[in-house]
């Protein structure tokens, strides 16, 4: 740590930091943010207690959002002046000479890994333990009008055609490209002073970060199309594509509360009988896992908004590039999780 630690210039944990005098990155912002997020989740839970909407919790939801917003404002206000002049490094083993914040990001990412592992573990167990709906349908072991408890993977709908899979596939490519754009932003920030015109550096960094922001927004937009909106495929004669509609998962009835799921592929052609399925477990697993990932993307968009703005002001250079590096670690992690979510929830 710097010898200036505890100096008279020791900054307030609330206000802008005086980085030139050894600010120790102290801030109440992460603590407030954690409290805000915790409060938000609790209140949203209360809002839908036992599946019923309870409006009494609504004001507290907005209070929680205000706490989150306040924390973000404090955090960004403090970081805005960060020029990389003080980056504390560990002095003891095992992380000697490694930036403390970098280690902190990795520990945070590992806790995130545990969250997603628990979701994957749950998915694997239920996928193994509950018979698939199509297996039951083909076996004929069902009675029309009586809901069958079975596992209906979302891929049954999503992977049913190239058009259905398109939003997820495009999203996969979008995340990979965004991982690339953010390392390019870091690369330009790392270029030694004097080796590149500073205005060119500034433009390259904010454009790469801006491109990452756009790709992240595209990801969530396509997710909404896939979940709720669907899309129209026009007639493209020379490709032999006929005009048709791609329905959203919502309109297909793939919902967490659907205990009477009726898919068109579960109609017995011989008798015309329609199998009805309770798909609450499979739909819940799909929406919770992909939704948790989507929330991480949303969090990334908020962070990217700030980073892009700061880059636009020309704040990033080889010394302050660590901010992009640390955020990049988070963003690559989001990509990493998608590498597993996409094949196992969308394709298989």
């Amino acid at each position, binding site marked *: 740590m710097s010898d200036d630690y505890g100096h008279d210039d020791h900054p307030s944990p609330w206000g802008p930091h005086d980085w030139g005098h050894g600010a120790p990155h102290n801030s109440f912002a992460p603590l407030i943010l954690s409290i805000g997020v915790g409060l938000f989740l609790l209140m949203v839970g209360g809002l839908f207690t036992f599946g*019923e909407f309870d409006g009494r919790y609504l004001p507290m939801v907005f209070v929680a959002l205000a706490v989150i917003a306040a924390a973000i404002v404090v955090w960004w206000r403090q970081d805005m002046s960060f020029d990389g002049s003080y980056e504390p490094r560990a002095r003891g083993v095992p992380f000697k000479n490694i930036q403390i914040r970098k280690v902190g990001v990795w520990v945070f990412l590992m*806790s995130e890994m545990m969250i997603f592992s628990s979701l994957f573990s749950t998915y694997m167990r239920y996928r193994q333990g509950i018979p698939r709906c199509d297996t039951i349908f083909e076996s004929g072991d069902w009675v029309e009008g009586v809901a069958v408890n079975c596992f209906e993977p979302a891929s049954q709908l999503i992977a049913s055609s190239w058009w259905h899979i398109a939003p997820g596939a495009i999203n996969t490519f979008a995340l*990979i490209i965004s991982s690339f754009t953010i390392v*390019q932003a870091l690369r330009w920030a790392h270029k030694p002073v004097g080796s590149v015109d500073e205005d060119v550096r500034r433009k390259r960094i904010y454009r790469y970060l801006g491109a990452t922001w756009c790709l992240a927004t595209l990801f969530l937009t396509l997710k909404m199309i896939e979940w709720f909106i669907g899309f129209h495929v026009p007639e493209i004669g020379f490709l032999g594509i006929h005009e048709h509609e791609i329905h959203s998962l919502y309109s297909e009835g793939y919902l967490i*509360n659907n205990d009477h799921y009726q898919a068109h592929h579960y109609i017995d052609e011989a008798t015309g009988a329609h199998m009805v399925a309770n798909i*609450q477990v499979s739909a819940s697993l799909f929406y919770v896992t992909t939704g948790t990932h989507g929330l991480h993307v949303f969090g990334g968009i908020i962070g990217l908004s700030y980073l892009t703005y700061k880059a636009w002001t020309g704040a990033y250079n080889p010394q302050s590039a660590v901010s992009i590096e640390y955020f990049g670690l988070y963003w690559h992690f989001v*990509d990493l999780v998608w590498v597993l979510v996409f094949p196992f929830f969308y394709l298989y």
Partner: protein
Amino acid sequence: MSKTIMGKDAYWMNFFGLMLLTLIEVAAVGTDLGPTAEGFDMTERQLTLWILTIIAIPKFMMIAAIFMHLWGENDSGILTLTALFPAFFIIIMVLFIGLTHPEAATGLPAWCRPGTYGL
């Protein structure tokens, strides 16, 4: 920051590699693998799962090693160990609890089954 793979920039090579592997993933799902699966004495779904898993592993490693700088940096070793720290717990959770508990899916008490709350 100027690492290379086969003489080319590591970031670009990683990017192209990831794009290629993803294309293979999507193609594997869209292609009729039935006859191939019969040759391996498995169902098409099993073969697809194998392909997807085999492709996901290098993709995972490529992102972690190149984009997250867990390869070729001074601190790569200790940070890789840090990243692997939860692996022990994940293995326990996924393999031992997730796959071996005989009644995890069906033996749950009614109060924690979906639908009980009218959701």
